[in-house]
């Protein structure tokens, strides 16, 4: 029998497959989209440095993606990646992590990296829940949702993290879901070519730790839900707040052209060096 080999398998560390993700999880779709994006762009994985936090979403590249993969601490991936990017400005420095990681414990780093406009590609996988720890409420869990730590109902309103990152000054912000896989790949390609802080909120599914408590039993149920609930940014502009209730606004939210942080730093160094040498 001929062994079946996926054309993108070369991007993965075969020796440690299969992944640890649960059936129906969106993490595989995100990995698939990302690998397709780098394949389409013909980016050599040698030029990708992946930095991740802690959580299931961080296990999308760590340890499976065959590039430099640095698996750090909960919430600190963006700060860690900032240190990498300033010394390796030519590399594609990519951060993939969850909503708890990037919007919760690491929220402040996310805001400040966006403000600095560090040239990172950040993919926040928003599954509305703390997946790895077994389904606790997260900063993006919808109001009223049942989770293991809001066993009756979530009393908090969710954070619109993409809007926060846009307001903080990022050069690129988009939101897509795992249902919009082609749009997601296209957006990832834009992000990987964009200078400055670039961010995609990827609305994803966790049937095991979230879905089954809110009536979305499997991956398919989530796909139908994402399809039904999403509206494009253009359409959303003409909708009232009430009409947007429960909707997922998808598309590009912001695109700017501010100078990238490490480039700014280097320019300052160059001008100091010129001044010092009396030019």
């Amino acid at each position: 029998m001929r062994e079946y080999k996926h054309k993108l398998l070369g991007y993965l560390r075969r020796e440690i497959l299969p992944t640890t993700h649960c059936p129906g999880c969106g993490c595989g779709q995100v990995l698939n989209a990302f690998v397709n994006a780098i394949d389409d762009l013909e980016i050599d994985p040698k030029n990708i440095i992946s930095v991740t936090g802690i959580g299931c979403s961080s296990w999308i590249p760590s340890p499976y993606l065959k590039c430099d993969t640095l698996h750090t601490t909960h919430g600190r991936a963006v700060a860690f990646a900032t240190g990498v990017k300033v010394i390796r400005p030519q590399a594609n420095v990519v951060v993939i992590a969850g909503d708890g990681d990037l919007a919760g414990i690491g929220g402040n780093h996310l805001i400040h990296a966006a403000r600095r406009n560090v040239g990172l590609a950040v993919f926040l996988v928003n599954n509305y829940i703390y997946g790895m720890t077994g389904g606790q409420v997260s900063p993006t869990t919808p109001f009223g949702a049942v989770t293991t730590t809001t066993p009756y109902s979530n009393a908090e309103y969710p954070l619109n993290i993409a809007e926060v990152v846009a307001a903080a000054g990022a050069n690129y912000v988009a939101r897509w879901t795992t249902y919009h896989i082609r749009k997601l790949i296209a957006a990832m390609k834009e992000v990987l070519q964009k200078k400055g802080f670039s961010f995609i909120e990827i609305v994803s599914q966790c049937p095991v730790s979230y879905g089954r408590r809110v009536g979305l039993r499997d991956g398919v149920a989530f796909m139908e839900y994402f399809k039904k609930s999403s509206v494009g940014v253009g359409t959303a502009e003409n909708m009232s707040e009430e009409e947007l209730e429960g909707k997922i606004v998808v598309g590009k939210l912001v695109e700017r052209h501010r100078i990238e942080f490490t480039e700014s730093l280097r320019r300052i160094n160059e001008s100091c060096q010129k001044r010092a040498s009396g030019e």
Partner: protein
Amino acid sequence: MKADPAGVLTGAHYLDGDFACGEGAMAAGCRFTAGYPITPSTEVVERIARRFPTMGGLFIQMEDEMASMAAIVGASWTGTKTLTVTSGPGFSLMMENIGLAVMMETPCVVVNVQRGGPSTGLPTMTGQADMMQARWGSHGDYEIIALSPQSPQEAFDLMIDAFNLAELYRVPVLFMMDECVGHMTEKVVIPPAEEIEIVPRTLTSVPPGEYWPYHVNGKYVPEFARAGDGYRFHTTGLTHDERGYPDMSAECQEKCVHRLLEKIKNNADKIVRFDEEQTDGADVVVVSYGITARVARMGVDLARKKGLKVGIIRLIVVWPFPEKRIRELAGNIKAFVVPEINYGQMVLEVERCAAGQASAICVPHGGGGVHDPNDICEAIVRAAK
């Protein structure tokens, strides 16, 4: 390797300990620093931020100390020598990522210009109460290296050693200054670059494809590959095998953590450093470090004038602790006297090593100032009885 002249401000200067520490870092080859302002340490990064551009260094003021620590660990993985600087409250915030640096085996240096604590404590006044936090502050089992300078000159000199030790053993090295040394101004002589010996990051000679980040081949310290050089390696704070891949098993944990401990423990003889003076025939030996070592010397002089036989051990490297020497001395003397600006931290280590053969007497100070040398003298007199 000799130091890069671009970072070496050769000459005789009048500098405070913070500035000297910053100069030491730059002379040692540090080219990335991340920090968050905190008294009494801020002058270190102010100095670096001003001087970095001409030598191609990069400084970022991060949003907090967790970010600062994370950023220097990240930047170190590109092969750059990195530093962060803080004081007590920030040191507490750095603990988790200091553990990450330990686990990933990342060379970097963390300066703590100690002030009085706990909590916000005495922001502008001295303390030495973070010595045990330096040893045990991050969770899990690990061994660490920490140094403590007693003067601005030593803040410069030991900074070079701190960076070199970080490279040799691939550990975060903690630089435990105190506010007194940080803010005292004295003569600091910076030698020419060619007289400063630097340990560069030794990069692996194994080609990509054959390289595994934690394959040690019977040695203690694995070979380093830089992120961005095409090795496509994996590193993690999770318990990992030699390939760097996570392995959640007791066997792997044993192997992984054991080596992290052994690489410091089994090289302790090479790392440990202290000054020793007149311990032969002494009845009492005073053990101290940092600013307190200078105050203690005055106490010792007073006691010697009274005819007492007093020796001195001054810790330069505080972690690992000079266990062997303290054990040996314990058999020959009556007591150790340990003044420190805390309520008894390093004295616990002295007591442990003395193991009942000699007593270990703490001369505490709550912080905000230094000891009265008379108090140290009195403790020596009592100890000699």
